[in-house]
């Protein structure tokens, strides 16, 4: 194997694939990155056995070949090199990869590429496309609501529904639910539902940042794997098997009180309350008062921590309906508020023990449901 490439490209590529390197694994080779010189490209692959990331960078290949090198070592070394041409050579029948860049030389001991877990090939199945921006927003608005606790594996994934021209992403952890709907760039013939690990979508989200073109999504025929194809990058991930709970029952159809409030203001106050709430299991109490006569409607937010202190603050709100109160975990509230790009939201509630609903004003592609905390009032 013999090739040369630019430090800048190699460094970028390693940072992209670096996110799916196994951190703790019983299979040591998964902590390595696979380097394969093919035609006029250098292919970089990492896998943690749940997902694999492949990235191609431009290179001048003199002799094809492949080797795996500890990812951390290689990334740290390449990041510290000046932006210059790097020559990479692997002598025949050797595992010692040689680097030459200007006046710098280095050798790294690798493991045979044959031993690297093969990346699943997904060529046929259901193929569709989606705008990168829309996907990024969708992932951002649901992924935090997925369960981190793994007793119910399906809840650690995002329920992904392809419906003709539409893609729905749903996440729920038992206490809250987020549903985001977005248009597909290419229509799909039938309805299709898979559960994608939240971790995979999180990593994908990071890579979508500098993606302009639509993302190609392929689901294999066995519905066991999904492939996201970006420019020069591919992510393959296992899908979570099982069926997602029927969430349509969970989203309340009606409300008795609806408050429209400015997000920035609401967010600021919630953050302030969390200073106290974090010592009280995150509980904040919301009291929604409708406007009367000349007084505007408002939401009164309070938090109190035993033996520490308390705070109360108010934000103006356009309140429709009767006075109502509800208690939330402040984390759940600020998670959703910080994921909404619009400037206002509507908070819809009925009783202190039934779920509260948050919807952005101006769009109807997002619903967030939070189950309240039952507290003494």
């Amino acid at each position: 194997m013999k090739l040369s490439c630019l430090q800048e490209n190699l460094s970028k590529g390693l940072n992209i694939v670096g996110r799916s390197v196994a951190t703790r694994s019983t299979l040591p080779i998964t902590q390595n990155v696979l380097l394969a010189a093919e035609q006029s490209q250098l292919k970089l692959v990492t896998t943690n056995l749940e997902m694999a990331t492949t990235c191609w960078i431009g290179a001048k290949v003199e002799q094809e070949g492949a080797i795996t090198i500890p990812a951390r070592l290689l990334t740290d070394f390449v990041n510290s090199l000046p932006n210059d041409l790097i020559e990479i050579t692997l002598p025949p029948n050797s595992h010692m990869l040689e680097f030459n860049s200007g006046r710098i030389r280095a050798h790294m001991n690798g493991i045979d590429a044959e031993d690297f877990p093969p990346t699943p090939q997904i060529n046929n199945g259901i193929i569709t496309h989606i705008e990168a921006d829309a996907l990024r927003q969708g992932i951002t608005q649901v992924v935090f609501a997925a369960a981190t606790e793994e007793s119910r594996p399906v809840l650690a994934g995002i329920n992904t529904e392809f419906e003709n021209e539409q893609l729905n992403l749903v996440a729920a952890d038992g206490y809250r639910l987020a549903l985001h709907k977005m248009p597909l760039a290419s229509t799909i013939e039938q309805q299709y539902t898979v559960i994608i690990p939240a971790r995979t979508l999180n990593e994908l989200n990071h890579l979508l940042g500098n993606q302009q073109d639509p993302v190609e999504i392929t689901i294999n025929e066995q519905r066991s794997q999904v492939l996201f194809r970006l420019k020069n990058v591919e992510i393959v991930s296992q899908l979570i098997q099982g069926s997602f709970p029927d969430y349509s029952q969970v989203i309340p159809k009606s409300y008795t009180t609806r408050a429209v409030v400015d997000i920035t203001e609401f967010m600021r106050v919630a953050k302030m309350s969390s200073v106290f709430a974090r010592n009280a299991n995150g509980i904040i109490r919301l009291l929604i008062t409708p406007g009367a006569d000349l007084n505007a409607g408002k939401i009164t937010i309070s938090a109190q921590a035993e033996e520490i202190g308390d705070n109360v603050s108010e934000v103006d709100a356009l309140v429709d309906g009767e006075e109502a109160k509800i208690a939330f975990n402040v984390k759940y509230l600020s998670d959703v508020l910080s994921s909404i790009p619009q400037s206002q939201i509507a908070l819809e509630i009925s009783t202190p023990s039934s779920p509260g609903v948050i919807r952005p004003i101006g769009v109807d592609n997002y619903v967030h449901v939070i189950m309240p905390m039952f507290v003494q009032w």
Partner: protein
Amino acid sequence: MPIKVLAPGVISQIAAGEVIENPASVVKELVENSLDAGASQIKVEVQGGGIELIGVVDDGAGISAAEVELAFQRHATSKITDVDDLSSTSTLGFRGEALSSIAAAAEVELYTQAASEVVGSRIRLSQGKVVRQESRSRPRGTTVTMRWLFRHLPARLKFLKSASREESRIVHLLTQYALAFPEVKFRLLVDQHLNFETTGDGSLRGVVACLYGREMAQKMLVIEGEGTTPALSGLLSPPSLTRSNRSYISIFVNRRWVRSPLLIKATEVAYRGLLMEGRHPIAVINLALPSADVDVNVHPAKAQVRFRDEQMLFSMVQESLRAVLSQVPIATEKTVPFTTSSRQGESSWELHDREASVIAPLPTIELPVLRVLGQLSNTYIIAEGPDGLYLVDQHAAHERIRYERILAQWKRQEVEVQGLLSPVTVELNPRQEATLKSNRELLVQFGFSLEPFGSRSYLMRAVPVLIANTNVVEAITTLLDNLAAREDPVPWQEKIARTLACHSAIRGGQQLSREEMGELIRQLERAEQPRTCPHGRPTMIHLTSHQIEKEFGRIV
């Protein structure tokens, strides 16, 4: 077989069996006689596990020559005269069965001289009959020597344990008397070697020092009865000092050693949450009750007692001991494995000099302000305090914080509950279901909302906030299993709080950020019992600056 009245010899042998079961009961009867005779010194000699020989020498009142022979008759006693005396007796013995029973079971020689007489008498009995009697002078007191226990009763001999077992029973028994009577000088010789000797100077701590060692005696805490009824006094080990069995809990009612499961339990309950599982305290507890409130005449051996108001006594003992314990700083007592405390042996140990410093008021449990330095093995937080290094077990510490918070919320009836978006189905086994049914109310108070949903399955609609981000199904099933476990005498609410705390606390092996560790330590500082987890494991180990400097050889 026709019915007939048994011969007197047979009757006395049967009766003897009630009082004399083993060599230790012979020692017990003889020592009690000596104590009742007002002895200030008692020497006990044992050979062959007490089967071959038991000798008890005292300097008590002695028996006058005229009464010597009478002493060996059944129900002959100097201690009571009529039934009314039974309820007011203050002597250890009163049934008048001891000497006659021993004489029926073995060869006995009594050598005694009463203070008022110029000459003593010596009498020897075999199988309950006098074989020799003579007048002989000796210092005031009584010597009883018993040889060959159960020699003529092979059936009983068969049931004795090995000599070494019988011997340890005697040692344990005599230990108890030594603890009960610090003003009497006890001396025990086993196979002609000195087993222990007490000073007889009246100091209980001194007796503990002689029996259990000086180091232990120094650390024992004083129980002060302050005129309560019943009056309670004695010594109690701090939680850092434990033993692996209960035999170090000695309880005396009106100076009589009793085996009272009730009071032993009260003692252990007082230590709840302070000791590790399987560890037991060392305690010497003296209870003074009006003799009308206690009945010792349950069994000839008098080891069992009945109390008039058991419930009151239980809570009184438990609360008094708890009050003593709550004043102890715990972890500083913890010895660090690789070094020994340098304080011992620095001067010749003087009992009374030490007394003052040990009884001096101890500070309440409070942690010093700790500064987090880092995390060890993702399990222990390393922190620096004003006096050295602290290693904090993150799981145990968090468990303690959670436990206190859960119980506090429950007591204020302010348990915080997180609703579930859609109910979770919980499948229970029959035992879990039975536990659930009988504890439904309590579980609701702690924040669980469960509705029946078909056979043995339940819908969970809400959970306590603290466990919301854990496996809630596992939490409720573990909880039900723990509640069903009977051997643990802890009240239900504490069991629930313990399980929830354990379930929701951060685990060992979890990496924590500096902020998280700081927060954990701050919360631990505010805990009421920061030194132990609810199961009694220590939350921290303290390496004092002194120990560190000593290890590095900076000081000698």
